[in-house]
């Protein structure tokens, strides 16, 4: 897969106590977004963290990182979305960022999670010309996103049902957007939905 700088959009459900043993990444900006449950992260930089809902993790692999990811719970499953975005340059210094936000910050609006420069705190810095948002929409709730010229978007529906410029999408669906200057996202019955929006060059 590849759309602009977006390389991988992966959804995983990890059983209690299970996970992915130590493996390597290089030259990739890796975002992890937990929908349900808790994910335990450990890496060769010495970072060890538990990631839950309403948090964003950005592991910038750069010149090389080895990490493991396990369900932090022995009883509850974890449901996670992982996104790979190509960095602007190779061999960058590896780094780890994790920020939490209040659940209401994404309700009825698009909450910025990652951008090339810190513009809203707390958020993560991504080493690519990309802006990543999360938005949760109740039924009939609407949010708009406008684009600068020559921008593209990938909209991933991660929960429920959302219409995007009149097209109905359900959990697991995505819309690829080009040649649009405005997106209108609306929560649809029975329970609205949640999206991740990637504004890309």
């Amino acid at each position, binding site marked *: 897969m590849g759309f602009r700088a977006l390389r991988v959009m992966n959804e995983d459900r990890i059983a209690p*106590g299970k*996970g992915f*043993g*130590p*493996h*390597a990444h*290089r030259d990739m900006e890796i975002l992890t977004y937990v929908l349900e449950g808790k994910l335990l992260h*450990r890496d*060769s930089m010495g970072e060890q963290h538990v990631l839950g809902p309403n948090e964003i993790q950005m592991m910038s692999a750069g*010149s*090389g*990182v*080895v990490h*493991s990811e*396990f369900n932090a719970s022995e009883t509850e499953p974890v449901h996670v979305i992982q996104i790979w975005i190509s960095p602007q340059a190779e061999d960058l210094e590896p780094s780890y960022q994790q920020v939490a936000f209040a659940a209401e910050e994404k309700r009825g609006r698009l909450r910025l999670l990652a951008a090339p420069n810190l513009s809203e705190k707390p958020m993560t810095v991504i080493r690519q010309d990309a802006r990543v948002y999360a938005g949760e929409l109740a039924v009939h709730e609407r949010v708009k996103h406008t684009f600068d010229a020559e921008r593209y978007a990938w909209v991933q529906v991660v929960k429920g049902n959302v219409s995007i410029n009149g097209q109905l999408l359900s959990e697991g669906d995505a819309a690829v957007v080009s040649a649009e200057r405005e997106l209108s996202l609306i929560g649809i019955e029975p329970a609205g939905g949640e999206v991740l929006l990637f504004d890309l060059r």
Partner: protein
Amino acid sequence: MKASPVNVLVIFYSCCGRTEKLALAAAVGAVQARANIRMRRLTDSGEQIPECKEALARMRKEYVPPAQTDVVWADAVIIGMNGKVAGVVEDAAQATAFGRRIVGETRAIREGQG
């Protein structure tokens, strides 16, 4: 022209996480050199070390031991274990014997089952 990446198998023996940390550093070094890596932990012999209980439980869960497919896959192997485990603490001949044993046994596995 880009050279095709080298496959590096990192095998280590660790009960408290110290050798694991070194193995991780070696693996990251290999990745920096644009190699592919696999990390495999040798199964311990059921050690019970009270002060390392957590690290031991974690490593037993996170890693798998090397398999034949790992050895066949590897272009290079990095081995990490402390000198006592390797049996190389007394003299240089032990280190040489250890190295030769690794090469011989790995070859036997490859030829015997490959």
